[in-house]
């Protein structure tokens, strides 16, 4: 940052001063005077191509390192869901506590925000933390962003992708708290619905449970232990069962079919809110520690035999 600014100020000042100096130094002496033609110099041209190129590559590398770090979320994060809709932000803490246009986080933890939109593209922007990320509606897409707050306080956040009439009102405050205060705040905020419990209820209500039997004997694969694992698909490829995959499989199940199953599941596109999808995902994540049945799972651990003759959808 300092380097880029210094280089830019140096060049801007240099060019400006050179122009002003030449402008007065070589001001026309008599009305019919002409200038002295200067010989072109290929070495000079080469120099002012190569030197800026080197400086530019330094800037590029510096920015690239920061960006790669920003896009690579560390492992031990506190996961919070953020949903944008015209024109408000809905936040859900890990224990289910919900906030609107407010985000409470503990100091010194890596915070990961999973971003979803119910309508148009938004962008979650916290200027004080130097982070932003677009919030994009779609079937197989969650953007995530992470940051590590270092100082307790209240900080503005904004929507920075134009999203319609009240775009400018779609902002709020991040409150960074000491971990103990955060814990107290979480428990004092009235226990929100536990997202896992909500998800389990939805799993029954939406009839997911009728096919996705946990013991692997259903018409769809058991979801036990699936989250984070490799899933073998009908076309022979594997995919990591992350949040984006789960989301896509709920909304558009036919996009990726688990090997050995038929495409029977109806798409839930338009039938679930973003919050319901998040709750279902939380429930499926909670099954991660459950035992994987030997048969009837999409999970493709090394060496496990392909599931039986059942021809069903995951």
């Amino acid at each position, binding site marked *: 940052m300092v380097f880029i600014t210094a280089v*830019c100020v140096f060049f801007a000042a240099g060019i400006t001063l050179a122009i002003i100096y030449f402008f007065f130094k070589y001001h026309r002496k008599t009305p*019919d005077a002409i200038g002295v033609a200067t010989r072109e110099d290929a070495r000079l041209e080469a120099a*002012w191509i190569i030197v800026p190129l080197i400086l530019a590559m330094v800037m*590029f590398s510096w920015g690239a390192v920061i960006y790669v770090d920003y896009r690579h979320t560390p492992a031990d994060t506190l996961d919070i869901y953020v949903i944008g809709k015209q024109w408000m932000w809905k936040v859900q803490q890990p224990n289910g506590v919900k906030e609107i246009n407010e985000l409470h986080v503990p100091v010194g933890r890596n915070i990961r925000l999973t971003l979803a939109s119910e309508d148009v593209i938004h962008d979650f922007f916290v200027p004080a933390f130097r982070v932003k990320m677009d919030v994009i*509606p779609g079937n197989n897409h969650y953007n995530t962003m992470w940051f590590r707050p270092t100082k307790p306080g209240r900080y503005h956040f904004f929507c920075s992708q134009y999203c319609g009439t009240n775009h400018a009102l779609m902002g709020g405050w991040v409150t960074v708290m000491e971990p103990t205060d955060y814990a107290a705040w979480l428990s004092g905020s009235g226990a929100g619905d536990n997202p896992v419990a909500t998800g389990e209820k939805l799993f029954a209500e939406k009839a997911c449970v009728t096919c996705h039997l946990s013991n692997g004997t259903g018409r769809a694969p058991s979801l036990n232990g699936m989250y984070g694992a490799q899933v073998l698909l009908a076309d022979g490829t594997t995919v990591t069962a992350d949040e984006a995959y789960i989301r896509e499989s709920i909304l558009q199940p036919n996009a990726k079919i688990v090997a050995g199953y038929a495409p029977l599941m109806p798409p839930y596109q338009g039938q679930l809110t973003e919050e319901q999808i998040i709750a279902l995902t939380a429930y499926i994540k909670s099954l991660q520690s459950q035992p994987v049945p030997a048969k009837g799972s999409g999970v493709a651990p090394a060496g496990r035999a392909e599931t039986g003759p059942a021809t069903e959808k995951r």
Partner: protein
Amino acid sequence: MSTTPPDPERELPDTHYLNATYGAGIRSWLLTTDHKRIALLYLASVTVFFFIGGVFATLIRIHLLTPGGALVSPETYNKLFTMHGVAMIFFFLIPSIPAVLGNFLIPIMIGAKDLAFPRINLLSWYLYIIGGAFVLYSFSTGGLDTGWTFYTPLSSIYSNSAVTPAVIGIFINGFSSILTGLNFVVTIHTMRAPGMTWFRLPLFVWAHYATSLVMILGTPVVAITLLLAALERIFHLGFFNPALGGDPILFQHLFWFYSHPAVYIMVLPAMGVVSEIIPTFARKPIFGYSFIAGSSIAIAVIGFFVWAHHMFVTGESTYAALAFSFLSYLVAIPSAVKVFNWTATLYKGSISWHAPMLYALGFIGLFTIGGLTGLFLACLGLDIHIHDTYFVVAHFHYIMVGGAVMGYVGGLHFWWPKITGRLYPKGLSEFAAVVLFIGFNLTFFPQFILGYLGMPRRYHNYPPEFQVLNVLSTAGASILAVGYLLPMLYLIWSMRYGKIAGPNPWPATGLEWKTDSPPPTENFHVTPVVDWEPYDYKNRPDLGLAGSRPLAPAHGND
């Protein structure tokens, strides 16, 4: 040895393109195929759109005087900045220099009688007018509130404003741009006068050649993209709407594939103007002719491969972001080469203080700031913070207004004596150039700071801590407005009352200055033969300057 100073008794030529009989009255303009008259049709029509866009900008700046918004409702504010962008970009900046100055000058500069396809040239203007009519219809029947970028699904599903007519208007206008580009390319290839080799072409022509390539290759993409958005809006076909299986990010890729190169459509011609003005008022050959010409082509080519730098925080793949950041740094180099060469041209020149020169030097200063702040935005780590803030707004106004508009106004001042045959008031025009420069900086420099502090774009209200800088910006905008109104007034005044200019008032070396001012309909009375190198003052006794000598075979420098 030198000829007399400007003769106050000069007269306009008896017949020229403005008074030649083409037919009666208004029809002689509306049915003309003379590139010079068509250029003036464009001049009038882009000025109308500049004025409309300027009124929107004025209202925006007044509204932002107070944190809560001083003037209009949120809906109206969103329409104002959208319509400001659409009017200024598609109907002023993109056609301004190519369709006005390029149209007027390219045939004369290369010694041709007209463009290769005079009727298609007129068709281009009519397409522009029809497209413009659709857009004005959209503005006046509900307005447009999608942002000039038309991001989906906001534009294709959620907006309640008159998106469809605006998109159709821009679609039609695109063909005007494509046809103009084709006309220029064919003309430059096939209609150069004897002796006008490629490396004797004025750099203005090189710049327009590069611009034309971008127009021809880029414009169809944005036309089709906007058409898809319109189809999605009208017939609910799912191209970009995720609820219909579309991908909203796809729109951004397609849109920026044109709209980033479009920045070069705006600024390359301005660079061409500056490359003409600087050697004229320094009275010496431009430094690094072939590097400036080559850098125009390099910008046009590399400019096609940087589009996704508008999308670093959309969640695009990290590898894509790395590649596009790298390429964005590469495209900065040819621009830097131009700036260095222009500055070096001043060295040992014989520099004079005329309005066109002040605009050209102002261009270099403002374009340099605009270009250097582009390095901040191309930097991946920094862009996470400043993307979609006022930093971006300031950056592209430095390029488009500080660069393209300064170039356009400077070019108008430079060739005004050729276009009208008359001079404008010297002192007043220099004063206006200084006012424009100061007003511009006062308007837009504070916006860099606003953006860095975190004020997002397109906000109809803002937290109170941003007010001081916004007030400063609005104050600057009122000075800037004076800087635009003054030239409008005295240029119009000069058409009737200005002093007669004569063929070559500066004097300049280009072919366009060898013919009458205003030129005859056929541009030259006899086909010119070019036997001098570009921007050469030394071997041009016909310019009547001290130090010129007759063209001698095997001459050396100095």
